[in-house]
């Protein structure tokens, strides 16, 4: 099981779902905050749902307010980057580029991709954390990189 956990974790990095920032979070976890990573990720998904909703709403308006979209996406991107959600962040960057170019189609498309990556990652992390709980906290301590 430990091996499975380790491999799952490694795959996140290998496949580009997560980046170095996630490791930073893991390193912050300690005895006083034994579930820190999971707590942060949970908080992220909860808070970012609101940001995504705002983005959805803003993308429905006609005409599109690119400045507002950019600002909203900036917030969302910042959040994603803080947990190391690499693929989502890349889509956010693409979105911002389309925003600057005032390309509505591009924005909508990349937003769609961003949401997809966001949801995929969420599922992966949920099952990962579940695995972690099963193996016990000690496993986290000697997690290989």
């Amino acid at each position, binding site marked *: 099981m430990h091996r499975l956990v380790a491999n799952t974790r490694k795959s996140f990095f290998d496949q580009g779902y997560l980046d170095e*920032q996630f490791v*930073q*979070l893991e*390193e*912050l976890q*300690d005895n006083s*905050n034994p579930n*820190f990573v999971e*707590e*942060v990720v949970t*908080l*992220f998904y909860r*808070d*970012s749902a609101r940001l995504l909703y705002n983005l959805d709403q803003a993308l429905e308006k006609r005409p599109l307010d690119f*400045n507002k979209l*950019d*600002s909203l996406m*900036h*917030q969302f*991107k*910042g*959040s994603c*980057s*803080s*947990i*190391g959600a690499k693929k989502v962040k890349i889509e956010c960057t693409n979105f911002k580029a389309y925003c600057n170019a005032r390309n509505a189609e591009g924005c909508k498309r990349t937003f769609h991709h961003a949401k997809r990556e966001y949801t995929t990652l969420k599922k992966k992390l949920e099952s990962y954390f579940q695995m972690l709980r099963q193996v016990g906290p000690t496993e986290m301590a000697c997690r290989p990189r």
Partner: protein
Amino acid sequence: MNLASQNLVNKQSTMPSSSSASRNSTTGGDNNVPDQFPAGLRVLVVDDDPTCLMILEKMLRNCKYEVTKCNRAVVALSLLRENKNGFDVVISDVHMPDMDGFKLLVHIGLEMDLPVIMMSADDSKSVVMKGVTHGACDYLIKPVRIEALRNIWQHVVRKKKREWKDVDTSASLDDVDRKEKEREDPDYSSSANEGHNWKNVKRRKDDEDEGEGEGEEREDSSSLKKPRVVWCVELHQQFVAAVNQLGIDKAVPKKILDLMNVPGITRENVASHLQKFRLYLRRLNGSHQSGGSNPSFLSHPDAGYGSMSTLSDLDLQALAASGQLGQLGQLGQLPAQSLATLQAAALGRSGNPKTPFSVPVNDQRNIFSFENPQPRYGQVQNRQGHNSNITKPINLLHGIPTTMEPKQLVGMIPMTGQSQSQSQSQTQTQTQSQSQSQSQIYNHVLRPPVLTGSVVSPGNHVTELTGNRFPVRGNLGIPSYGGNQNRPQNWGLQGADLTFDRSLHTNNMQGGLNVLQHDYGSGQKIGGSKVIFSTGEGSGTQFADNHLRVKAENVNYKSACQPFCPDEYSQDDLLTAIFSQQQQQEGIGEAESELGLDWYSLDNLPV
């Protein structure tokens, strides 16, 4: 360093408190901390993103710092105000919904003089530069790594060293010498001081490792251990009033100190504060001058900065008021205190996202010398654009040739209009005076650049002061209510009891009271601003004896002008604060955050 030394001991559960006792002999020093330093550093983190906030908090705790989280800038400011000396460093996000991070930065720099570190996911050069010009001591790119946070204590140390240096300098240097140095180009004064205080600093640095040895030295010297002086709003107001009274060029610490007449602060405190203030003003001014864009008033609140908010109307008012005050002061009427109060009021308005108007507070004479109004205004004209928003407000002083350092402006709102009026306005008919002055005030206040008679750009129009005099010919939007000019006592009565609502940012002077109505965006209600814009036809501002009026106008004006200076919120805030205070002083009525001036009472002000 007195880095919360006392707190350190308490907070650090893991830190042995007695280890360093031997080092520090000073009582207030980091007695227990030198060894543990920077552990226990008290950090305030401000970010609207809860995920980031949680991560930062954990990172900082892991660095053994004492962390306070905050997700709203206004809350952060009030926390800082309530706990003077309660924090050592502030880390703030740039993009926040309730207040622009840079604005918060400026506020903190002026009021509490704490090191502020900005952070953002945005790493574009322009934003980072903005951080620099606004006085951030560092800029972190998100996602922030813990390594980046481990060293933030250096900013605290650096700042403290500077403070100590000032203290020590004053003690050891001859005042005259220092003054001379200070009298040099203001821009260089600080460096001059620093230069020749270097040895002191160096000495301090050496002592630092020994646990505040310098503290001991300092104790021996006259300056005392120098507990950190917190420049609260009132104190800053007094400071600004004093500077204004002296004239920015002639404001030297000793004189400022004497004018302020506040016990418990030293010349060094004043000197370092002055230095900061000047830097701030310069910063504010710099963009203005370079960009030529309208710094604040007219500048579109959002111009250039998505998040920049325009000056809160109160700020503007405060600015205006302070400007007026300056003018009045010049006239010899306004007591420095009034200005100070305005300043304080302005400062008090922390909530204003608006950028303050940085009104350069040059020597009044200079400011008002409308001899060449154009240069300023010319530039200003552009303001419409974003440029001004950004940072350099100021140009309240239209035509003021000086380069008022931004700091000076803050709170010192030059009464550009006033000066002009003074020189020229005398001719203004008294009847108009009121309206004129108002308009004039508005003119300058709102749009510094406008003076050249051009009307401010369409949206923002800050009433331009035509010629030097500003009269806002109507540009102000204050559409002469009818002829405004001759509404001498239109103070506020003009029908417009404009309450500036915050939402109105733009100063559109459309219709007359627009100016007044403009809510600078920050939604600050100018409280009773009975904006009296009686039309700008003002040709000459009658400032001469309408200090008060001008003031009132400014007040209103300010609110109207709010949006103009998105970046210069601090000034606005200061102005607002000052203004409100002024009102209080004058017994005008509540001032607190509103500038509800009772125009009539202004007449009572000594001329």
